[in-house]
């Protein structure tokens, strides 16, 4: 079972894996604390996965349950595929954090609380009538009660900070303690603090003092005897150079790489929206990489500018989340009709409407495949992890320019924000797919098609001798002149569809991720369910069950062997963070009796949820 088992055992507390969650008020700096613990953990050569969970409000009222921000990390000496089912160590910086996170703590798990924040007022705000530290609420857990607030203020006293600034260092105190608990080298945290506060040395020194004080607290004899410390040995990891990579970073670098491999300038356009904005922030500084970013006045302007960019010879990419994608829909139809390259990145979030902006969901699959007026086919590619996002984004760029089509690229809030160690590829190993713009006027027809790809030629305005007009009105299948002819419309509709379907010849056959073709059960997923499905299937296989894992990247068109592959199993189970979208597509496409397994509570699947569901079939 995944999710760690961090009870200190008597033989030196060696663990295969552990899950730690830092939870506090949104002003407590929990995301920074978690990121810093992740850095120290990566340096210790554990495999890991992280997941931040923060509120939609930027500054929710302090002390409230809806203002709680949390960061979870799962790390171990074996391959880590999810951010963990159950929490082994919960750091709760206030009563609200305890209230909202306690349910995820494993029985017997360790709670570290800052008693300094457990005032009557904060207890009331969190909705506790009695102090949970005293009324037996925490029976069955191990608890470490420390007045972090007071100890932090004392530790930073020499640096002359005001009381408020001094208290803000308490997240570093907590980090120091957890660094100690897992034997982490905190040098990397110190270096980061020095860099971050290079212009405010007093703040840097105070934070480092707090970090050291937390660590020193752990080192005291009493602490060690009572709670022990844990050892998570290094994982057996493929040699090479690594970095931590979030999904947003993976997509951003994949888009830059894709444009580079196509030999094009990247015009990236967006409008601020959670959780897609990260891409705009990551790409805006990359001006030295042939990237121009454009923050448009709205989602519609963003997609239109991207299409304008592609029309003029750049790779136009626009990005949003479901509600913003909905606004872009009409323009995407124009890119389909004018057959121009375009990549549309959808960082999916909970819906409908504004829904759960900071929570994850994969409920825009129908929108990606079907969500436009008329017969308007495009290609759909989905990534399944931060590292995979890099390669999948390159693939989206390749299809867009080769087939002169919009490509919908699906990621989600979980992948965007989650981080994992990434074996950095060598860019020189990637196969280039350089674009050739047509410049030869001889025999040029605007909608004449390449016999293999069915793509029309890409001509940049500014090219002598190739003057032409394009637009959304139906056009003649060769000349591109306006045509309302009935047979021509049938032909153009067929052409648009067949061009997209033809991509199936140009994508890898569907592989079986674990297991083999044929057998009892196939678990079929797409997107960010990769981690929990993968671990659930490997656990079941370790128990001797005949179950395989298939994960689909090319959602439209699908690999040509997929239908036969699915039919080779007795049962097909499709876990999704929606009410059953891929499962419907598979049933419609292949007439297979695929069964849904659905979850839409804003959180990724737990491994155990998939394992439990599989029991009925194995």
């Amino acid at each position, binding site marked *: 079972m995944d999710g760690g088992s961090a009870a200190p055992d008597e033989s030196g507390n060696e663990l295969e894996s552990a899950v730690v969650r830092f939870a506090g008020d949104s002003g407590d700096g929990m995301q920074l604390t978690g990121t810093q613990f992740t850095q120290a953990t990566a*340096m210790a*050569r554990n495999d890991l996965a992280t997941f931040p969970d923060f509120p939609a409000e930027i500054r929710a009222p302090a002390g409230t349950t809806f203002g709680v921000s949390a960061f979870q990390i799962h790390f171990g000496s074996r391959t880590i595929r999810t951010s963990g089912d159950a929490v082994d160590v919960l750091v709760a910086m206030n009563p609200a954090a305890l209230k909202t996170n306690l349910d995820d703590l494993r029985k017997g798990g360790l709670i570290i609380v800052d008693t300094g924040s457990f005032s009557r007022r904060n207890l009331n705000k969190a909705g506790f009538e009695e102090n949970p530290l005293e009324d037996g609420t925490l029976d069955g857990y191990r608890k470490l009660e420390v007045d972090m607030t007071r100890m932090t203020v004392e530790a930073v006293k020499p640096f002359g900070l005001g009381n408020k600034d001094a208290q803000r260092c308490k997240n570093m105190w907590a980090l120091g303690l957890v660094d100690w608990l897992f034997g982490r080298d905190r040098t*990397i945290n110190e270096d980061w603090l020095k860099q971050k506060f290079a212009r405010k040395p007093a703040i840097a020194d105070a934070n480092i003092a707090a970090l050291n004080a937390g660590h020193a607290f752990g080192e005291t004899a009493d602490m060690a005897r009572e709670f022990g410390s844990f050892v998570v040995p290094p994982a057996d990891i*493929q*040699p*090479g*150079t*690594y*970095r*931590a990579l979030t999904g947003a970073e993976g997509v951003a*670098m994949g888009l*830059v*790489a894709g444009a*580079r491999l196509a030999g094009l300038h990247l*015009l990236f*356009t967006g409008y601020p929206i959670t959780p897609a904005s990260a891409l705009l922030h990551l790409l805006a500084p*990359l*001006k*030295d*990489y*042939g990237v*121009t970013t*454009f923050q*448009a*006045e*709205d989602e*519609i*302007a*963003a997609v*239109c*500018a991207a*299409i*304008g*960019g*592609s*029309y*003029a*010879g*750049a790779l*136009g990419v626009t990005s949003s989340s479901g509600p913003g994608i909905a606004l872009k829909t009409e*323009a995407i*139809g*124009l890119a389909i009709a*004018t057959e121009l390259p375009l990549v549309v990145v959808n960082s999916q979030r909970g819906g409908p409407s504004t829904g759960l902006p900071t929570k994850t969901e994969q409920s825009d699959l129908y929108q990606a495949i079907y969500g436009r007026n008329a017969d308007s086919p495009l290609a759909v590619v989905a990534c399944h992890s931060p590292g995979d996002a890099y390669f999948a984004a390159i693939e989206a760029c390749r299809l867009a320019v080769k087939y002169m089509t919009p490509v919908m690229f699906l990621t989600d809030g979980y992948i965007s924000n989650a981080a994992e160690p990434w074996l*950095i590829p060598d*860019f*020189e190993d990637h196969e280039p797919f350089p674009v050739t713009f047509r410049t030869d006027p001889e025999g040029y027809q605007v909608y004449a098609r390449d016999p293999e790809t069915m793509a029309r030629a890409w001509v*940049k*305005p*500014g090219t002598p*001798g*190739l*003057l*032409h*007009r*394009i*637009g*959304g*009105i139906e056009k003649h299948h060769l000349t591109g002149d*306006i045509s309302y002819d009935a047979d021509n419309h049938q032909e153009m509709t067929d052409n648009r569809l067949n061009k997209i379907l033809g991509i199936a010849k140009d994508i890898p056959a569907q592989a079986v991720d674990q297991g083999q073709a044929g057998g009892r059960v196939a678990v079929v997923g797409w997107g960010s369910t990769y981690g929990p499905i993968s671990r659930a299937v490997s656990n079941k296989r370790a128990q001797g069950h005949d179950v395989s894992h298939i994960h689909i990247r090319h959602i439209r068109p699908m690999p040509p062997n997929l239908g036969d592959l699915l039919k080779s199993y007795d049962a097909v189970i499709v876990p999704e963070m929606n009410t059953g979208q891929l499962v419907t597509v598979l049933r419609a496409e292949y007439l297979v009796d695929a069964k849904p397994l659905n979850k839409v509570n804003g959180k990724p699947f737990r491994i155990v949820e998939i394992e439990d569901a599989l029991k009925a079939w194995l």
Partner: protein
Amino acid sequence: MNVQTPANLSPKDYATDQEVRWCPGCGDYAILKAVQKAMADIGADPANTVFVSGIGCAARFPYYMETYGFHTIHGRAPSFATGIKLTNPDLDVWVVGGDGDGLSIGGNHTLHAIRRNVDISYLLFNNEIYGLTKGQYSPTSRLGTRSPSTPHGSIDSPVDALSFALGVNARFVARGIDRRQDHLPGLLARAHAHKGCSFVEIIQNCIVYNDGVFEHFTEKAVTADMQLEAEHGQPLIFGKNREKGLRLNRQTLELEVATLGEDGFSEDDVIVHDETNRTIGGALARMKPPDFPVAIGVLYCAPAEMSYERAVLAQNRAIADKAPAAGDMNTLLHRGSTWEVAA
């Protein structure tokens, strides 16, 4: 950079072989003719010229221009044009749209293309009606306009295109009239020469759904009295015998019309048009019959140092020049903290 060479073409060289599908007598024909003449006068390179449009009668324009053309979606032409200019700032980009396209569904994009100062020439054909959808009132229709959607008369106030443009800091604002072939091509050449967003309202008669709505100032008989041709450095004088001029009412800070030679009003008292003066430009834009003539010409022109896309690309270049990695992909992939895992 593409060097634009005078192409030595005649207006008809800018016409396509496509059948023009506007209603017979539509003002759009006259505008098309004026644009083609302006292109020839400028010596525009057809290969380097792009006409971008949204949806509506006016938006069919690109199909009739022997240049590059992109007929896009309703209201969004300025956004496409922005993407085109960000990708290739050397292209001559013209945006063409109607009053519904540019001020209703696309009002937001018009606003932002203007205030960003994207180097495009925006031609807004204002016929005060929705033509292609069969005659509904538009955001520029006058109060009380009866139409299929307002059978008892419209009750919402119209927007004045040029006041709107000036309100969002347009740096080139002009007005022309479809019937004024003597005036319009020169105006378009001025718009083209302006570096930055040039916004031109062209009064255009819809012969089917709003015929004659501009007659009171476009009919030949009243032209001299009801149109004022603003020209930089010239006194704002109009009238059949050039007997009327504009002056400032110091009490109301508004313009007023006065007759030369009456009450001691002499040519020296007439306001001299200064197209770099935003206050004068705004006052001229607002003038409405019957108390005032309609001002045509370049009402305001004050170019910025750099247009939006030039500034974006200059910033890109400045940052890129300073970047040590010079775009090396492997450097990008290795950014931030990395660590080695030994074999």
